[in-house]
Protein backbone atom coordinates (compact mmCIF):
# COMPACT_ATOMS: atom_id res chain seq x y z
CA UNK A 1 0.00 0.00 0.00
CA UNK A 2 2.76 2.37 1.04
CA UNK A 3 4.76 1.29 -2.00
CA UNK A 4 1.88 2.19 -4.29
CA UNK A 5 1.42 5.54 -2.62
CA UNK A 6 5.14 6.32 -3.02
CA UNK A 7 5.00 5.33 -6.68
CA UNK A 8 2.04 7.57 -7.36
CA UNK A 9 3.66 10.46 -5.57
CA UNK A 10 6.96 10.15 -7.43
CA UNK A 11 5.27 9.79 -10.81
CA UNK A 12 3.13 12.86 -10.12
CA UNK A 13 6.15 14.89 -9.05
CA UNK A 14 8.22 13.88 -12.06
CA UNK A 15 5.43 14.37 -14.57
CA UNK A 16 4.85 17.85 -13.25
CA UNK A 17 8.53 18.82 -12.96
CA UNK A 18 9.83 17.50 -16.25
CA UNK A 19 6.92 18.33 -18.49
CA UNK A 20 8.95 21.07 -20.17
CA UNK A 21 11.75 18.74 -21.23
CA UNK A 22 10.54 18.09 -24.78
CA UNK A 23 11.48 15.26 -27.08
CA UNK A 24 13.46 15.94 -30.22
CA UNK A 25 11.32 15.00 -33.26
CA UNK A 26 14.38 14.62 -35.49
CA UNK A 27 16.42 12.38 -33.21
CA UNK A 28 15.64 9.07 -34.95
CA UNK A 29 16.46 10.58 -38.34
CA UNK A 30 19.72 12.00 -37.03
CA UNK A 31 20.81 8.77 -35.32
CA UNK A 32 20.18 6.74 -38.49
CA UNK A 33 22.01 9.31 -40.59
CA UNK A 34 24.99 9.51 -38.22
CA UNK A 35 25.19 5.74 -37.85
CA UNK A 36 25.18 5.17 -41.60
CA UNK A 37 27.62 7.97 -42.36
CA UNK A 38 30.12 6.93 -39.70
CA UNK A 39 30.11 3.32 -40.77
CA UNK A 40 30.52 4.05 -44.44
CA UNK A 41 33.62 6.11 -43.80
CA UNK A 42 34.94 3.63 -41.24
CA UNK A 43 34.56 0.60 -43.47
CA UNK A 44 35.96 2.43 -46.50
CA UNK A 45 38.98 3.58 -44.54
CA UNK A 46 39.71 0.17 -43.09
CA UNK A 47 39.27 -1.54 -46.49
CA UNK A 48 41.62 0.93 -48.18
CA UNK A 49 44.24 0.50 -45.52
CA UNK A 50 44.06 -3.26 -45.60
CA UNK A 51 44.20 -3.40 -49.37
CA UNK A 52 47.04 -0.91 -49.63
CA UNK A 53 49.15 -2.59 -47.03
CA UNK A 54 48.05 -6.07 -47.99
CA UNK A 55 48.28 -7.13 -44.39
CA UNK A 56 46.05 -7.68 -41.43
CA UNK A 57 45.05 -4.54 -39.61
CA UNK A 58 46.78 -3.94 -36.33
CA UNK A 59 44.40 -4.24 -33.44
CA UNK A 60 44.66 -2.51 -30.11
CA UNK A 61 44.38 -5.91 -28.45
CA UNK A 62 47.97 -6.74 -29.37
CA UNK A 63 49.24 -3.56 -27.81
CA UNK A 64 47.19 -4.19 -24.73
CA UNK A 65 48.59 -7.67 -24.45
CA UNK A 66 52.21 -6.54 -24.54
CA UNK A 67 51.57 -3.60 -22.23
CA UNK A 68 49.80 -5.91 -19.85
CA UNK A 69 52.68 -8.40 -19.86
CA UNK A 70 55.14 -5.60 -19.24
CA UNK A 71 53.08 -4.28 -16.37
CA UNK A 72 52.82 -7.72 -14.81
CA UNK A 73 56.59 -8.12 -15.06
CA UNK A 74 57.16 -4.73 -13.47
CA UNK A 75 54.70 -5.52 -10.74
CA UNK A 76 56.42 -8.79 -9.97
CA UNK A 77 59.70 -6.98 -9.55
CA UNK A 78 58.39 -4.11 -7.47
CA UNK A 79 57.44 -4.89 -3.94
CA UNK A 80 54.29 -3.05 -3.05
CA UNK A 81 54.50 -1.22 0.21
CA UNK A 82 51.61 1.14 -0.24
CA UNK A 83 49.59 -0.20 2.67
CA UNK A 84 52.14 0.71 5.31
CA UNK A 85 53.47 4.16 4.38
CA UNK A 86 52.64 6.81 1.88
CA UNK A 87 55.08 7.14 -0.97
CA UNK A 88 55.06 10.33 -3.00
CA UNK A 89 56.26 10.58 -6.57
CA UNK A 90 58.67 13.18 -7.87
CA UNK A 91 55.79 14.75 -9.74
CA UNK A 92 53.93 15.20 -6.45
CA UNK A 93 56.91 16.92 -4.85
CA UNK A 94 57.35 19.15 -7.90
CA UNK A 95 53.66 20.05 -7.93
CA UNK A 96 53.88 21.10 -4.28
CA UNK A 97 56.94 23.19 -5.07
CA UNK A 98 55.12 24.84 -7.99
CA UNK A 99 52.20 25.69 -5.69
CA UNK A 100 54.60 27.23 -3.19
CA UNK A 101 56.36 29.32 -5.83
CA UNK A 102 53.03 30.57 -7.18
CA UNK A 103 51.92 31.55 -3.70
CA UNK A 104 55.22 33.30 -2.93
CA UNK A 105 55.13 35.48 -6.03
CA UNK A 106 51.42 36.11 -6.60
CA UNK A 107 49.80 35.26 -3.29
CA UNK A 108 47.65 32.52 -4.76
CA UNK A 109 46.99 30.39 -1.74
CA UNK A 110 45.61 26.86 -1.57
CA UNK A 111 41.94 27.86 -1.54
CA UNK A 112 42.41 30.28 -4.41
CA UNK A 113 44.11 27.63 -6.49
CA UNK A 114 40.67 26.12 -7.03
CA UNK A 115 40.10 28.92 -9.49
CA UNK A 116 42.63 27.20 -11.75
CA UNK A 117 43.35 23.85 -13.30
CA UNK A 118 46.94 22.74 -13.13
CA UNK A 119 48.75 20.78 -15.82
CA UNK A 120 52.41 19.88 -16.11
CA UNK A 121 55.02 19.01 -18.67
CA UNK A 122 58.45 18.20 -17.32
CA UNK A 123 59.49 21.00 -14.97
CA UNK A 124 56.88 23.44 -16.24
CA UNK A 125 53.57 23.70 -14.37
CA UNK A 126 50.77 25.71 -15.95
CA UNK A 127 47.78 27.10 -14.04
CA UNK A 128 44.86 27.99 -16.25
CA UNK A 129 41.93 30.08 -14.96
CA UNK A 130 38.66 28.18 -14.91
CA UNK A 131 35.79 28.53 -17.32
CA UNK A 132 34.25 32.00 -17.72
CA UNK A 133 37.04 33.50 -15.65
CA UNK A 134 39.86 32.21 -17.81
CA UNK A 135 40.36 35.52 -19.62
CA UNK A 136 40.33 37.46 -16.40
CA UNK A 137 42.54 35.20 -14.31
CA UNK A 138 44.95 34.37 -17.09
CA UNK A 139 47.54 31.62 -17.21
CA UNK A 140 50.47 31.27 -14.85
CA UNK A 141 53.56 29.28 -15.64
CA UNK A 142 55.94 27.97 -13.01
CA UNK A 143 59.31 26.44 -13.78
CA UNK A 144 60.20 24.38 -10.72
CA UNK A 145 63.73 23.86 -11.94
CA UNK A 146 64.64 27.55 -12.27
CA UNK A 147 62.06 28.86 -9.81
CA UNK A 148 60.74 31.28 -12.43
CA UNK A 149 57.05 32.22 -12.18
CA UNK A 150 55.28 34.12 -14.96
CA UNK A 151 51.80 35.47 -15.46
CA UNK A 152 50.50 35.95 -18.98
CA UNK A 153 49.68 39.58 -18.17
CA UNK A 154 53.17 40.32 -16.90
CA UNK A 155 55.43 42.37 -19.11
CA UNK A 156 57.12 45.72 -19.42
CA UNK A 157 54.02 47.48 -20.72
CA UNK A 158 51.64 45.73 -18.36
CA UNK A 159 47.98 45.46 -19.19
CA UNK A 160 46.40 47.36 -16.39
CA UNK A 161 46.31 44.15 -14.44
CA UNK A 162 48.43 43.20 -11.53
CA UNK A 163 48.60 40.73 -8.72
CA UNK A 164 47.02 43.18 -6.30
CA UNK A 165 43.89 43.51 -8.39
CA UNK A 166 43.63 39.80 -8.84
CA UNK A 167 43.96 39.31 -5.11
CA UNK A 168 41.19 41.83 -4.50
CA UNK A 169 38.82 39.87 -6.71
CA UNK A 170 39.70 36.56 -5.20
CA UNK A 171 39.46 37.88 -1.66
CA UNK A 172 36.10 39.39 -2.38
CA UNK A 173 34.85 36.07 -3.73
CA UNK A 174 36.23 34.32 -0.72
CA UNK A 175 34.89 36.61 1.97
CA UNK A 176 31.23 36.59 1.07
CA UNK A 177 30.38 33.30 2.79
CA UNK A 178 27.71 30.92 1.52
CA UNK A 179 28.07 29.21 -1.84
CA UNK A 180 25.31 31.03 -3.65
CA UNK A 181 26.36 34.50 -2.58
CA UNK A 182 29.97 33.81 -3.36
CA UNK A 183 29.19 32.58 -6.82
CA UNK A 184 26.90 35.48 -7.64
CA UNK A 185 29.35 37.96 -6.27
CA UNK A 186 32.27 36.38 -8.05
CA UNK A 187 30.41 36.69 -11.31
CA UNK A 188 29.52 40.31 -10.65
CA UNK A 189 33.10 41.13 -9.71
CA UNK A 190 34.41 39.37 -12.77
CA UNK A 191 32.05 41.22 -15.07
CA UNK A 192 32.94 44.58 -13.56
CA UNK A 193 36.63 43.97 -13.83
CA UNK A 194 36.37 42.55 -17.29
CA UNK A 195 34.64 45.75 -18.37
CA UNK A 196 37.32 47.86 -16.73
CA UNK A 197 40.04 45.95 -18.50
CA UNK A 198 38.45 45.75 -21.91
CA UNK A 199 41.86 45.70 -23.55
CA UNK A 200 42.40 42.21 -22.21
CA UNK A 201 38.84 40.93 -22.27
CA UNK A 202 39.04 39.68 -25.81
CA UNK A 203 41.53 37.04 -24.91
CA UNK A 204 40.32 33.64 -26.00
CA UNK A 205 38.71 31.60 -23.26
CA UNK A 206 40.39 28.42 -22.26
CA UNK A 207 38.41 25.35 -23.11
CA UNK A 208 39.15 21.87 -21.86
CA UNK A 209 40.69 19.44 -24.32
CA UNK A 210 37.96 17.42 -26.02
CA UNK A 211 37.78 13.90 -24.65
CA UNK A 212 35.57 11.49 -26.52
CA UNK A 213 33.54 8.96 -24.59
CA UNK A 214 35.28 6.12 -26.37
CA UNK A 215 38.70 7.43 -25.36
CA UNK A 216 37.61 7.87 -21.80
CA UNK A 217 36.08 4.39 -21.61
CA UNK A 218 39.06 2.78 -23.30
CA UNK A 219 41.45 4.51 -20.92
CA UNK A 220 39.44 3.30 -17.93
CA UNK A 221 39.34 -0.28 -19.20
CA UNK A 222 43.05 -0.30 -19.88
CA UNK A 223 43.90 1.15 -16.46
CA UNK A 224 41.58 -1.30 -14.69
CA UNK A 225 43.21 -4.22 -16.46
CA UNK A 226 46.68 -3.11 -15.44
CA UNK A 227 45.91 -1.95 -11.90
CA UNK A 228 47.36 -3.78 -8.94
CA UNK A 229 45.31 -1.68 -6.56
CA UNK A 230 41.59 -1.73 -5.92
CA UNK A 231 39.66 1.53 -5.66
CA UNK A 232 39.20 0.80 -1.93
CA UNK A 233 42.97 0.67 -1.47
CA UNK A 234 43.39 3.85 -3.49
CA UNK A 235 40.69 5.47 -1.34
CA UNK A 236 42.61 4.64 1.84
CA UNK A 237 45.82 6.02 0.39
CA UNK A 238 43.95 9.08 -0.80
CA UNK A 239 42.47 9.72 2.64
CA UNK A 240 45.90 9.46 4.30
CA UNK A 241 47.47 11.74 1.71
CA UNK A 242 44.71 14.35 2.07
CA UNK A 243 45.01 14.31 5.85
CA UNK A 244 48.75 14.67 5.67
CA UNK A 245 48.74 17.49 3.12
CA UNK A 246 45.74 19.52 4.25
CA UNK A 247 45.78 18.73 7.96
CA UNK A 248 42.14 17.74 8.21
CA UNK A 249 40.85 17.04 11.72
CA UNK A 250 39.38 13.69 12.74
CA UNK A 251 35.87 15.14 12.46
CA UNK A 252 36.61 16.51 9.00
CA UNK A 253 38.07 13.16 7.96
CA UNK A 254 34.90 11.43 9.09
CA UNK A 255 32.85 13.79 6.96
CA UNK A 256 35.08 13.38 3.93
CA UNK A 257 32.91 11.32 1.57
CA UNK A 258 34.11 9.26 -1.37
CA UNK A 259 31.99 10.06 -4.44
CA UNK A 260 32.02 6.66 -6.09
CA UNK A 261 30.51 7.65 -9.40
CA UNK A 262 33.25 10.23 -9.94
CA UNK A 263 36.10 7.99 -8.77
CA UNK A 264 37.66 6.00 -11.55
CA UNK A 265 40.70 4.38 -13.07
CA UNK A 266 42.35 6.07 -16.03
CA UNK A 267 45.64 5.99 -17.93
CA UNK A 268 47.95 8.97 -17.52
CA UNK A 269 50.43 8.45 -20.31
CA UNK A 270 51.71 4.92 -19.80
CA UNK A 271 50.76 4.84 -16.13
CA UNK A 272 47.49 3.33 -14.88
CA UNK A 273 46.07 5.51 -12.13
CA UNK A 274 43.24 5.27 -9.65
CA UNK A 275 41.67 8.63 -8.92
CA UNK A 276 39.42 8.59 -5.87
CA UNK A 277 37.23 11.69 -5.68
CA UNK A 278 36.26 13.03 -2.27
CA UNK A 279 33.75 15.61 -1.19
CA UNK A 280 33.71 17.49 2.10
CA UNK A 281 30.83 19.66 3.22
CA UNK A 282 30.85 20.31 6.94
CA UNK A 283 27.75 22.40 7.14
CA UNK A 284 24.89 22.17 4.66
CA UNK A 285 24.65 25.24 2.43
CA UNK A 286 27.60 27.20 3.83
CA UNK A 287 31.28 27.15 3.07
CA UNK A 288 33.54 26.12 5.93
CA UNK A 289 37.31 26.08 5.69
CA UNK A 290 38.60 22.88 4.01
CA UNK A 291 35.24 22.20 2.33
CA UNK A 292 35.34 21.17 -1.29
CA UNK A 293 36.46 18.51 -3.74
CA UNK A 294 39.66 16.52 -3.33
CA UNK A 295 40.95 14.29 -6.12
CA UNK A 296 43.97 12.11 -5.45
CA UNK A 297 45.93 10.62 -8.34
CA UNK A 298 47.39 7.30 -7.20
CA UNK A 299 49.73 5.16 -9.30
CA UNK A 300 47.66 1.97 -9.61
CA UNK A 301 50.75 -0.23 -9.94
CA UNK A 302 52.61 0.65 -6.76
CA UNK A 303 50.40 3.01 -4.76
CA UNK A 304 52.62 6.07 -5.14
CA UNK A 305 50.70 9.32 -4.65
CA UNK A 306 51.20 11.25 -7.88
CA UNK A 307 49.12 14.35 -7.26
CA UNK A 308 46.30 15.87 -5.28
CA UNK A 309 43.82 18.39 -6.62
CA UNK A 310 41.74 20.49 -4.31
CA UNK A 311 38.81 22.63 -5.37
CA UNK A 312 36.83 24.70 -2.87
CA UNK A 313 33.89 24.67 -5.26
CA UNK A 314 33.45 28.39 -4.78
CA UNK A 315 33.68 29.28 -8.44
CA UNK A 316 30.25 27.99 -9.38
CA UNK A 317 31.05 24.41 -8.53
CA UNK A 318 29.18 24.27 -5.28
Amino acid sequence: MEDRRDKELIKRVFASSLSELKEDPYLAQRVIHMGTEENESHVKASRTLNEENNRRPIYMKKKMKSTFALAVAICLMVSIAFAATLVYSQRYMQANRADELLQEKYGITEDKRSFFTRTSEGDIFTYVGLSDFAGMLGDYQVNVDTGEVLWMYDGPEGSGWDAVKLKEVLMRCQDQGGYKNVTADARAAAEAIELAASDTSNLPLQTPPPVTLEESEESTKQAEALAKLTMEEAEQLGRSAIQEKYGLTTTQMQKLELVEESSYFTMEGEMPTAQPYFWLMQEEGAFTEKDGIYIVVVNALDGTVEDIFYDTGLLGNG
Partner: protein
Amino acid sequence: MKGGEQQMDVVKDPDNHSRMTDMVNQYQGMLLHMCYFYLHEEDLARDAVQDTFLKAYRSLDSFRGECSEKTWLTQIAINTCKSIRRSAWMRYFDRRVTPEEMPESFVMPESEESDIMYDIMELPSKLKEVLLLYYWQDMSVSEISQILGIAQSSVSRRLKQARDKLHAVLDRRYQYGRSQR
Protein backbone atom coordinates in the same frame (compact mmCIF):
# COMPACT_ATOMS: atom_id res chain seq x y z
CA MET B 1 32.73 -11.10 -42.25
CA LYS B 2 34.77 -8.35 -40.68
CA GLY B 3 33.36 -6.39 -37.71
CA GLY B 4 33.10 -3.14 -39.63
CA GLU B 5 31.22 -4.71 -42.52
CA GLN B 6 28.88 -6.47 -40.11
CA GLN B 7 28.09 -3.11 -38.53
CA MET B 8 27.61 -1.66 -41.99
CA ASP B 9 24.95 -4.27 -42.69
CA VAL B 10 23.18 -3.40 -39.48
CA VAL B 11 22.91 0.28 -40.30
CA LYS B 12 22.02 -0.32 -43.96
CA ASP B 13 19.19 -2.71 -43.20
CA PRO B 14 15.86 -0.85 -43.75
CA ASP B 15 14.20 -3.07 -41.12
CA ASN B 16 16.67 -1.75 -38.60
CA HIS B 17 15.85 1.81 -39.64
CA SER B 18 12.23 1.34 -38.75
CA ARG B 19 13.09 -0.62 -35.61
CA MET B 20 15.37 2.21 -34.51
CA THR B 21 12.75 4.83 -35.27
CA ASP B 22 10.23 2.94 -33.12
CA MET B 23 12.74 2.68 -30.30
CA VAL B 24 13.53 6.38 -30.40
CA ASN B 25 9.85 7.30 -30.46
CA GLN B 26 9.03 4.99 -27.61
CA TYR B 27 11.94 5.57 -25.23
CA GLN B 28 13.40 8.98 -26.01
CA GLY B 29 11.37 10.82 -23.38
CA MET B 30 12.07 8.32 -20.65
CA LEU B 31 15.81 8.29 -21.39
CA LEU B 32 15.99 12.07 -21.60
CA HIS B 33 14.54 12.38 -18.10
CA MET B 34 16.82 9.66 -16.82
CA CYS B 35 19.93 11.31 -18.29
CA TYR B 36 18.87 14.67 -16.94
CA PHE B 37 18.87 13.23 -13.46
CA TYR B 38 22.41 11.98 -13.92
CA LEU B 39 23.88 15.00 -15.66
CA HIS B 40 21.77 17.89 -14.42
CA GLU B 41 22.10 19.78 -17.69
CA GLU B 42 19.61 19.66 -20.50
CA ASP B 43 22.16 19.88 -23.31
CA LEU B 44 24.37 17.18 -21.83
CA ALA B 45 21.33 14.98 -21.28
CA ARG B 46 20.30 15.38 -24.93
CA ASP B 47 23.84 14.48 -26.07
CA ALA B 48 23.78 11.41 -23.84
CA VAL B 49 20.45 10.27 -25.27
CA GLN B 50 21.69 10.67 -28.83
CA ASP B 51 24.84 8.76 -27.97
CA THR B 52 22.77 6.02 -26.34
CA PHE B 53 20.66 5.49 -29.45
CA LEU B 54 23.73 5.63 -31.68
CA LYS B 55 25.42 2.90 -29.63
CA ALA B 56 22.22 0.86 -29.65
CA TYR B 57 21.86 1.30 -33.41
CA ARG B 58 25.39 0.08 -34.06
CA SER B 59 24.86 -3.01 -31.97
CA LEU B 60 21.26 -3.85 -32.78
CA ASP B 61 22.31 -7.27 -34.03
CA SER B 62 24.07 -8.14 -30.81
CA PHE B 63 20.92 -7.46 -28.80
CA ARG B 64 19.71 -10.95 -28.15
CA GLY B 65 16.50 -10.09 -26.36
CA GLU B 66 17.67 -11.52 -23.05
CA CYS B 67 16.18 -8.46 -21.42
CA SER B 68 13.61 -5.94 -22.59
CA GLU B 69 14.57 -3.16 -24.99
CA LYS B 70 13.83 -0.68 -22.21
CA THR B 71 16.27 -2.41 -19.83
CA TRP B 72 18.93 -2.61 -22.53
CA LEU B 73 18.63 1.05 -23.49
CA THR B 74 18.52 2.19 -19.88
CA GLN B 75 21.72 0.28 -19.21
CA ILE B 76 23.47 1.92 -22.18
CA ALA B 77 22.16 5.36 -21.15
CA ILE B 78 23.36 5.02 -17.56
CA ASN B 79 26.80 3.88 -18.68
CA THR B 80 26.95 6.76 -21.15
CA CYS B 81 26.04 9.25 -18.43
CA LYS B 82 28.65 7.79 -16.11
CA SER B 83 31.28 8.11 -18.84
CA ILE B 84 30.34 11.73 -19.39
CA ARG B 85 30.58 12.37 -15.66
CA ARG B 86 34.05 10.83 -15.68
CA SER B 87 35.31 13.03 -18.48
CA ALA B 88 38.17 15.41 -17.78
CA TRP B 89 35.95 18.46 -17.77
CA MET B 90 33.07 17.14 -15.69
CA ARG B 91 35.30 15.95 -12.89
CA TYR B 92 35.94 19.52 -11.84
CA PHE B 93 32.29 20.28 -11.41
CA ASP B 94 29.87 19.15 -8.85
CA ARG B 95 26.61 18.78 -10.70
CA ARG B 96 24.28 18.73 -7.74
CA VAL B 97 21.39 20.92 -8.72
CA THR B 98 19.98 23.46 -6.34
CA PRO B 99 16.61 25.04 -7.00
CA GLU B 100 18.32 28.27 -8.07
CA GLU B 101 20.33 26.42 -10.67
CA MET B 102 17.48 24.50 -12.29
CA PRO B 103 17.12 25.40 -15.98
CA GLU B 104 14.49 28.03 -16.61
CA SER B 105 12.15 25.56 -18.21
CA PHE B 106 12.08 23.60 -14.98
CA VAL B 107 11.37 26.49 -12.67
CA MET B 108 7.95 25.81 -11.28
CA PRO B 109 5.74 27.88 -9.09
CA GLU B 110 6.21 27.06 -5.42
CA SER B 111 4.37 23.82 -4.92
CA GLU B 112 4.52 20.61 -2.99
CA GLU B 113 5.74 18.86 -6.17
CA SER B 114 8.68 21.18 -6.67
CA ASP B 115 9.77 20.79 -3.04
CA ILE B 116 9.65 17.01 -3.27
CA MET B 117 11.52 17.10 -6.56
CA TYR B 118 14.35 19.05 -4.96
CA ASP B 119 14.46 16.63 -2.06
CA ILE B 120 14.80 13.73 -4.48
CA MET B 121 17.51 15.54 -6.43
CA GLU B 122 19.52 15.93 -3.25
CA LEU B 123 19.58 12.23 -2.42
CA PRO B 124 22.94 10.48 -2.95
CA SER B 125 23.27 9.25 -6.55
CA LYS B 126 23.25 5.57 -5.64
CA LEU B 127 19.96 5.89 -3.83
CA LYS B 128 18.45 8.24 -6.36
CA GLU B 129 19.06 5.89 -9.28
CA VAL B 130 17.32 2.91 -7.70
CA LEU B 131 14.48 5.13 -6.58
CA LEU B 132 13.99 6.43 -10.12
CA LEU B 133 14.20 3.05 -11.77
CA TYR B 134 11.89 1.36 -9.30
CA TYR B 135 9.23 3.97 -8.61
CA TRP B 136 9.29 6.02 -11.72
CA GLN B 137 10.23 3.50 -14.39
CA ASP B 138 8.33 0.63 -12.76
CA MET B 139 11.31 -1.69 -13.06
CA SER B 140 11.65 -4.79 -10.94
CA VAL B 141 14.50 -5.40 -8.50
CA SER B 142 15.88 -8.02 -10.88
CA GLU B 143 15.85 -5.59 -13.84
CA ILE B 144 17.54 -2.88 -11.78
CA SER B 145 20.16 -5.37 -10.67
CA GLN B 146 20.85 -6.21 -14.32
CA ILE B 147 21.07 -2.56 -15.36
CA LEU B 148 23.37 -1.46 -12.56
CA GLY B 149 25.40 -4.67 -12.50
CA ILE B 150 24.91 -5.18 -8.76
CA ALA B 151 23.34 -7.96 -6.70
CA GLN B 152 19.59 -7.97 -6.14
CA SER B 153 20.21 -7.82 -2.40
CA SER B 154 22.16 -4.57 -2.91
CA VAL B 155 19.29 -3.13 -4.94
CA SER B 156 16.83 -4.01 -2.15
CA ARG B 157 19.11 -2.51 0.46
CA ARG B 158 19.54 0.71 -1.49
CA LEU B 159 15.81 0.90 -2.14
CA LYS B 160 15.11 0.62 1.55
CA GLN B 161 17.65 3.34 2.36
CA ALA B 162 16.25 5.60 -0.36
CA ARG B 163 12.70 5.06 0.84
CA ASP B 164 13.65 5.77 4.45
CA LYS B 165 15.49 8.94 3.52
CA LEU B 166 12.66 10.15 1.33
CA HIS B 167 10.06 9.42 3.99
CA ALA B 168 12.14 11.20 6.60
CA VAL B 169 12.27 14.32 4.42
CA LEU B 170 8.59 14.11 3.55
CA ASP B 171 7.60 13.57 7.17
CA ARG B 172 9.59 16.58 8.19
CA ARG B 173 8.12 18.77 5.50
CA TYR B 174 4.53 17.63 5.26
CA GLN B 175 3.89 15.14 8.03
CA TYR B 176 3.44 12.85 5.05
CA GLY B 177 3.27 9.62 7.01
CA ARG B 178 1.02 10.91 9.75
CA SER B 179 -1.62 12.43 7.54
CA GLN B 180 -1.82 9.68 4.96
CA ARG B 181 -0.99 6.52 6.80
